[in-house]
């Protein structure tokens, strides 16, 4: 993407009192890029956004826009506009007044304000609502007013603090695409804080996963999804099934020793940074393939577990099975249901099996999945 290093965050650390919220965050964002800051509650993603917006002063580190340092500039001198999670619309002002307030503050002539506000309303599909108060709007309309209020001042960077989390699930799905399309049409740089993995995946050019105030991994949605750098990232990206294994790494193959729930197996090393010893294996329910033990074992690199089906549910599309493997239960999907109580084999293809050394520092940015694509 053009204009790399448009917005730079260099070694930013901050905290409240003795609690350190952000630890040495460095990030370079290109002009026009859509970056999602993804993480669970308390990981520091909103604090990072507030550092960018100028509401929290970092204890150390630098924030710069176009090589110009803005670390200690007031919020309105950074060319950034923030859309709040609660929308933070002013209840005593009409839709038009809410959207036009930023222009009024800049001393724009009132005829000009009216023109730009109605253009913004037209762009966001808010025509005819200019005289309504926020209290008389639906959640989706409020969200668009908040967006219009931020966009009307022509910011270079749009900061979005979980702007979709207060919307109905159905509206949220369409707003994702609308917001993404709008961002691309305007060519604006956007930083979007969310705890919703799918939202980050469908909206962002790049996902930055934060864990306990550090960047756990960053990359394209496809990269973080298929090549998680740590057990944390793998779990956060949906690989919730985890099993302990013992492996022996030789040149380019990983031999997996048979365990209480798994047969012996071999997967190609292909790019994983892994050493021999106990490892944590992670995989997604949809990556597991259930088969009857009487049927033939899939003939491709991967690992086979054996277990007993505990329960079956139908969330839609695939049947979801809870399968008991020795000391733990995992989730596995299948096209056809297997009966509860049935003993089954669970096959996980090499490409979908994420392996991480147990003792190693989880934050090491290692590549855990083969380079090769399926």
């Amino acid at each position: 993407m053009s204009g790399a290093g448009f917005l730079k965050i260099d070694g930013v650390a901050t905290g409240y009192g003795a609690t350190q919220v952000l630890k040495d965050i460095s990030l370079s964002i290109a002009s026009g890029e859509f970056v999602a800051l993804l993480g669970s509650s308390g990981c520091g993603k909103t604090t990072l956004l507030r550092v960018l917006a100028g509401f929290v002063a970092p204890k150390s580190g630098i924030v710069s826009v176009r090589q110009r340092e803005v670390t200690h500039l007031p919020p309105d001198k950074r060319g950034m506009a923030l859309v709040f999670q609660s929308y933070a619309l002013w209840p005593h002002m009409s839709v038009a007044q809410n959207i036009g307030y930023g222009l009024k503050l800049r001393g724009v002539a009132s005829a000009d304000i009216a023109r730009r506000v109605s253009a913004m309303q037209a762009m966001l599909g808010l025509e005819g609502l200019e005289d309504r108060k926020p209290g008389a709007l639906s959640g989706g309309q409020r969200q668009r007013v908040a967006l219009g209020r931020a966009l009307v001042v022509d910011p270079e960077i749009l900061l979005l603090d979980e702007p979709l989390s207060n919307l109905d699930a159905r509206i949220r799905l369409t707003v994702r695409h609308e917001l993404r399309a709008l961002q691309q049409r305007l060519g604006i740089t956007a930083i979007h804080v969310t705890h919703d993995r799918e939202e980050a995946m469908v909206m962002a050019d790049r996902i930055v996963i934060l864990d306990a105030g550090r960047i756990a991994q960053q990359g394209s949605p496809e990269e973080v999804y298929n090549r998680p750098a740590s057990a944390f990232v793998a779990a956060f990206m949906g690989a919730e099934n985890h099993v302990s294994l013992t492996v022996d790494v030789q040149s380019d193959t990983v031999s997996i020793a048979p365990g209480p729930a798994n047969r012996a197996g071999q997967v190609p090393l292909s790019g994983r940074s892994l050493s021999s010893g106990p490892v944590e294996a992670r995989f997604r329910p949809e990556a597991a393939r259930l088969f009857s033990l009487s049927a033939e074992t899939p003939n491709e690199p991967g690992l086979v577990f054996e277990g007993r089906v505990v329960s079956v549910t139908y969330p839609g599309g695939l049947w979801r099975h809870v399968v008991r493997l020795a000391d733990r239960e995992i989730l596995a999907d299948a096209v056809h249901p297997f009966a509860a109580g049935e003993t089954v084999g669970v096959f996980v293809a090499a490409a979908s099996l994420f392996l991480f050394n147990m003792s190693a520092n989880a934050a090491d940015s290692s590549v855990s999945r083969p380079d090769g694509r399926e």
Partner: protein
Amino acid sequence: MPRRLLGLLLVLPALSVIALLFILPLVMSAVGAFRVETGWGLGNFAKSFDLYLNDILFSVGIVSLSTLLIGLGAIAIGGYLTLGAHPLAVTILRWLYRWPMFIPFIVVGQILRTFLAKNGMMNNTAISLGLMTPIDAVSFLDWRGIVIAFVWKQTPFVALLVAGAMASVNREGIEAAVNLGASKLRVLAEIIVPQVTATLAVGLILSFVTMMSVLSVPLMINAQSPTMLTADIAFRVNAYGDYGVANALGLISLVLASSVAWIYLRISLRERA
């Protein structure tokens, strides 16, 4: 049916207390205002306006000016408590501003009498600091003294209500305005105050009514003409035993106070519509 009777029976003590101790005296006093030597008439009101028109205007003027200043003071204090960037200053202000609420009006009058007199503490301090010469010293013990006393005593009460309402204004709404470049003054005037107008109005109306009924401050600070209606009422009763004019003046005060309450009711009804 017996259940209903029981309910009535339960509220009866409270109802009779209100009727006997509040409504009856009020009605008696209102009725008394229309009783003249020859029977019924408006003579007491004619006399009241003849003798005390200046005092009526003086009272309305003083209380209105005080209300305005109290409103500004309360907004300033509430605004600083909400937006103040210096945590120590905010803590000190939060701790200090409430104290005048706990001091009775008569004590306020007494304190300010010694403070505002021609050779009182205020002028003495100014003279000793070289800010003015003894010849320039003037007494503030007139309408200004009453306004100062009212503002001093009532601002904390309104500030308490207003600061509470301001604290519950959405913080993100304030940050959104700052994000767009609003100064603190504009945030206060255009974002915060419009969201607390109902609370501000209630506080100011209660203060208005309280100030209309204070006797000790005008007696202590401004025992001359023109003075406030309360002093006149006390004078009519104590010096002449003239309950007719006193009642008429009381009714005039009541009408003044309730006109403010009426304005408030109209505002709140319009807001709810």
